[in-house]
Structures are given as structure tokens and as C-alpha cells.
């Protein structure tokens, strides 16, 4: 039982990071290869705060998120105005730079050998609630004007500007939210696995999240969540090693993009409307 709970916890927390990528890359078309670096920052900063400076957990997490936001703002200003393909390159470079710094600062971070002895603070309940909140947030985001603006910008940035949308500000907001999701997930995972090392947060992790988003379908939140649960759980169930796991992801997404590019779920969304209609008071229904 404990094993399944542990695995579910990891899946739930990783899904939070995937949701960040869903917003940034799926909805807004911003191809960042450096999002995992924010996860690394969240993990390391909160772990160091607790282990080396004795911060209480909430303060440590808030600190790591705060620093992540500041860094994300800087990176955003540097990269969000760049053309799409160069944005991928620039964020890749950022990711490499973060890993470089984490590896070099041996005194603080333990360098390439990693940082260990992190206490286990993350409970399954905490993880699942966090995931639920994250899903609720993304769902609300999509239904709001932010959701429409995202699709508009992704589709035709110039027309979006002319319609009055402040495209840079919108992109920055989305970039920050995605960074925060990744950082928070990183912190949660650090206090679960109790060990972190720089190599965990490279571009391949970022690409994995992108693969998961496109597997479910970048236009379906339900698809991304279910896709995340499936793709994160499958390798565990099949006892894959890391390399075969990545192979599975790669082959899967190549099949999906070639055969059904809109993703497994396309634009289908789980709707609670039919359920709500059952509970609507009689007179409202009659007034319709």
C-alpha cells in the first residue's frame, strides 16, 4: 500500500509541473526547454532553507517561490520578446546555466554529488490537495479571458495586439505561473525523495512534460491530466528503467503526432454541466 501511495504522490506532484507546461506551451505556444530548471530552483532553495538554515517548511517553500518569481521575471524580460524558435534556444540556455550554477556551487548545493538528508515533509494528502488546487486554477484560467487571450496569441499574435491585448504582459504572467508551478512541484518532490541533484532538472525533463501535454492534446485540460497520470504511471507499472521510459515517451509522441496530432483527447473536455443540470432547482429549469 505504501508503495502505491508513494508512487501516486510522485505522479501527482509531477502532474503539477506538467500543468504549468500545459499553460505555457500548450495554451500559449511558448516552447520553453528550461522549465525544469525552475523545478530545480524550487527544490534546491527550499531544501537548503530547511536543512542549512532551519526554516520552517512553509517559509522555505515561499522563499523558493519568491526567488523563482524574481528570476522568472528577469528571464521573461530577456526571452519573451524573441521569436518562437529562438525562445526555445534561449530557455534551453537558461536551463543549462541554472544547472551549471547548481553544479558549481559545491559549498552550498553539494554540486554534482547532489544534496541529501532532506526531511520527508510531503504527505500524500498535501500532494493530492495541491494537485486539485492546480487543476482548479488552470480550469478557471481557461474559462476566463486569459484562456481566450492565450489561444488568440498562440494563433495570431498581431491580431491579438490590435484587439487590445497586451501580449507581452500576458506572456509574462503565464511564464511566471508556469515557473511557480514547476518550483512548487520541485519543492514538494524534494521533501519526498529526500535527495536532489542537478542532473534531474535538465532539458530532458522539460521535453518530457511537453510530450505529456501533446500526448493528451494541448487543447484539452482533461487530456493533459489523464495523459500525465497514464504516462507517469505506466513506466512504474512496467518497471522501466529511466532510459526505456524516455524511449516509451518518444515513440508514443511520435505516433500521436503523426497519426492524431491533436492528441489523444483532441479538444474534448470533461464537462460537469450535465451533472450540474441534475441539481438545478426545478423552477430554474422551467423558466428555461
Amino acid at each position, binding site marked *: 500500500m505504501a508503495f502505491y501511495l508513494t508512487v501516486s504522490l510522485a505522479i501527482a506532484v509531477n502532474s503539477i509541473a506538467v500543468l504549468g507546461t500545459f499553460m505555457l506551451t500548450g495554451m500559449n505556444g511558448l516552447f520553453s526547454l528550461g522549465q525544469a530548471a525552475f523545478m530545480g530552483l524550487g527544490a534546491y532553495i527550499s531544501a537548503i532553507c530547511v536543512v542549512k538554515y532551519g526554516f520552517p517548511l512553509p517559509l522555505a517553500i515561499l522563499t523558493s517561490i519568491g526567488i523563482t518569481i524574481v528570476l522568472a521575471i528577469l528571464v521573461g524580460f530577456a526571452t519573451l520578446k524573441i521569436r518562437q524558435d529562438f525562445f526555445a534556444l534561449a530557455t534551453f540556455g537558461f536551463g543549462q546555466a541554472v544547472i551549471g550554477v547548481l553544479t558549481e556551487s559545491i559549498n552550498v548545493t553539494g554540486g554534482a554529488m547532489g544534496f541529501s538528508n532532506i526531511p520527508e515533509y510531503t504527505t500524500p494528502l498535501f500532494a493530492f490537495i495541491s494537485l486539485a488546487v492546480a487543476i482548479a486554477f488552470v480550469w478557471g484560467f481557461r474559462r476566463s*479571458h486569459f484562456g481566450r487571450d492565450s489561444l488568440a496569441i498562440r494563433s495570431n499574435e498581431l491580431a491579438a495586439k490590435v484587439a487590445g491585448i497586451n501580449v507581452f504582459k500576458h506572456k509574462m504572467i503565464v511564464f511566471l505561473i508556469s515557473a511557480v508551478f514547476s518550483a512548487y512541484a520541485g519543492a514538494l518532490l524534494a521533501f519526498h525523495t529526500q535527495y536532489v541533484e542537478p542532473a534531474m532538472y535538465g532539458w530532458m525533463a522539460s521535453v518530457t512534460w511537453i510530450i505529456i501535454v501533446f500526448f493528451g492534446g494541448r487543447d484539452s485540460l482533461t487530456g493533459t491530466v489523464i495523459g500525465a497520470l497514464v504516462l507517469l504511471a505506466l513506466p512504474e507499472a512496467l518497471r522501466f528503467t529511466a532510459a526505456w521510459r524516455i524511449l516509451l515517451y518518444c515513440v508514443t509522441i511520435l505516433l500521436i503526432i503523426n497519426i492524431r496530432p491533436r492528441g489523444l483527447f483532441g479538444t474534448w473536455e470533461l464537462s460537469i454541466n450535465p451533472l450540474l443540470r441534475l441539481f438545478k432547482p426545478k423552477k430554474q429549469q422551467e423558466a428555461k
Partner: protein
Amino acid sequence: MVKPVAIEIKNITKMFGGLCAVNDFSGCLFENHIIGIIGPNGAGKTTILNLVSGIYPPTSGEVLYQGKNISGLEPDKINHLGIARTFQNIRLFQDLTVLETVMTAYSWRASYNVLETLLSLPRVARFEKESREKSMRWIEKVGLAEQANVIAQSLPYGMQRRVEIARALASEPRVLLLDEPGAGLNQSEICDLVDLVQMIYEELSLSIMLIDHRMDVIMRLCQWIYVQDFGKSIAQGTPEQIQKDPIVIKAYLGEEVSCA
């Protein structure tokens, strides 16, 4: 009595590298007037529109809106000031319905920030409801009420044009810039378009700048016409004057088809 000026263009020039797209153009759009800019393809008409709507800044010269210099401002800021436009090659948003497309013009006026979307405050629902209702009114005005929930890009070309116009109107502008609105439309669609533009002009008291290379659209709607050729202004005047101007006739003989 001095007529109030909506947009004044003063000696704007635009160079793209070595190519001079617009050469020292000056023009004036009075409030509640319709002016037109005509000329053959490549004459620089769309460039003028792009300069006014902020797509890129002029190499020299100024664009004044209600007396204030707007040259070089970002397109979204210009939109907030009250200038809206359509595009020659229609620019709609993939995967958005007609209603959602028109609603994007209200996004910048949103009364809630991103954190508040999580809390699903009544403020959010209220704003969404208002945008939806206001947008529907514009959609009805252009005659697309039945297509409101259809994906905009799946509509026939003539309807897509009208979606663009509805989106521009949803900015609740004082000035409307129409870039070759007749492009790609057949004869009856053009007559419908002319009627539509006439109607919104009268009902909403807009100031309109219209660009086209088709004489029929321009002649029927505009009170004053500027004629461009290879980036330079070669004539201006009322439709009657332009039709008879030998320079214009020599440079460019447009097609004329009459609407019954």
C-alpha cells in the same frame, strides 16, 4: 466652423531597407467622416494603415490622434485610445468561436486579475457575462447571430470578414480602419459589405479610413479620397473629382461594377 479632426497624418515616410513604401504622405480624417485611400497594389496603402495602427513606426513624420502624437505607440495602446482595424488577409484566431473571437476585444478592460480567476469571484462571472452580452450585440449587428458559437475560421470567407468587423467594433472605437474589406468577396457580398459599412457609420458616428484598390467600394462610401501610386500621393478629392482627374485615370483605371 472648424471641423474636429480625428486623425491627422503629417508627412509620413516609411522605408523598408532601401525600399520606400510610403513617400511623404499627408492626410486628414475628420470626425464622423469616411475617407478612402486608393491605388494599385504596392502603392503603399496598407503601409499607411499599418503606420496609423502602430504595426511599425514611421521612418519620419507623425500621426496625430485627437491632436496627440501616436506614432510609434504599440498596437494595443493605440487600440485602447479608440482606433480599431481589420486586416486585408483576414486574421482570425484558430479554435475560437465567433463569440470568443469578438470577446477578445474586451479582454483589456477585464476587471479581474489572474489570481482572482481561481477564486471564481462574482466579479469574474459578472465581467464575463457583460462581455458576452456586449459582444453578442456586435455579432448581431453584423448579421452573424446564428453563427455565434461556430468556430470562426470554419465560416465562409464573407462571414469571416464580418467577424473581423465585429471584433473591431467590440473595441468600441471612435476610428475604424478597414484594410481592403472587399478583398476576396464576390459581387453580392461586396454590396452587402458596403451596406454594412454605411450602416455602422451612420449608427455609431464613426470616423472611417478605408483602403481598397476597387473603385466601386470607395466611390460609394467615401467623402474624400487620396490616391497613391508607388508610395507617392498623386491626387486627392471628392469621388466626382477623382473620377475625372486625368492623372488618376492615367495612373490607374479601376474596375467599376454597379450595385442594383
